[in-house]
């Protein structure tokens, strides 16, 4: 699997540590099912840690957007942590930086919800 996910509880925030690539195929499905699982368990604050995600394609960006909109529909807020520079470039190009609140410090991110 090119993407692995791990979930941590920090205060009342679900921190999802993602590692690998979020791309076409398996990786996108992996992210989707993790988010769905968290929403089903009632999460209302989700922090996606992209610190170990070096590569995202348009399909992966689509999954991030889906996570955001699906979560919003269920009263859950999704924010991003530690966006790497190449991924940051993509957020700029696609203007998705206007959608996602992104943080570089986990503690600050957790208290920002």
């Amino acid at each position: 699997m090119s993407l692995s996910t791990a979930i941590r509880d920090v205060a009342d925030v679900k921190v999802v540590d993602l590692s690998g690539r979020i791309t076409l195929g398996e990786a996108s499905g992996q992210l989707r099912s993790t988010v769905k699982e968290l929403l089903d368990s009632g999460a209302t604050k989700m922090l996606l840690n992209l610190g170990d995600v070096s590569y995202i394609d348009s399909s992966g960006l689509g999954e991030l957007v889906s996570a955001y909109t699906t979560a919003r529909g269920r009263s859950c807020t999704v924010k991003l942590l530690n966006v790497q520079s190449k991924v940051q470039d993509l957020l700029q190009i696609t203007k998705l930086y206007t959608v996602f609140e992104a943080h570089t410090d986990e503690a600050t991110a957790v208290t920002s919800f």
Partner: protein
Amino acid sequence: MTDARKLRLSLESTLDSVEAAELIVQRMAELNGFDPDQVHQIGMGVRETMANAVIHGNGLSPDKSVRFDASIDEQAFRVRVADEGSGFDPDSVADPLDKGGLLLPSGRGLLMMRAFFDEVEIGSSVDSGTRVRLVKYRTKGAGGTTQEEDQ
């Protein structure tokens, strides 16, 4: 400049072909003096183009293939991708930067191709599928002018 400057392949309509095309152009670009950022951009643009060809164009059909051409010269990296789909109208694709498009789960591929390559030309028809031509100049904005690279 060293080698691997021209390649013409027929690839199956699979996600692995998308990966393969990306790896090929990355290595070609790297061996021929493109810098790491350019290598990344060429790879991403080709990835998006190939993904469209195998998914939207050929519908992942085992009976359809993608014609893939890549070539490098003193000026630029050039790629052509042709599928056997039933085409589409690039002008009627929703703008993913619009308010309405921003939160859609798809529709950012063409935007990324255009962001990462200097020229993107799409020819599409119902009968002959879609042909995409991509050009990335070694020096940004060098379009059309002749210039020598020191190697």
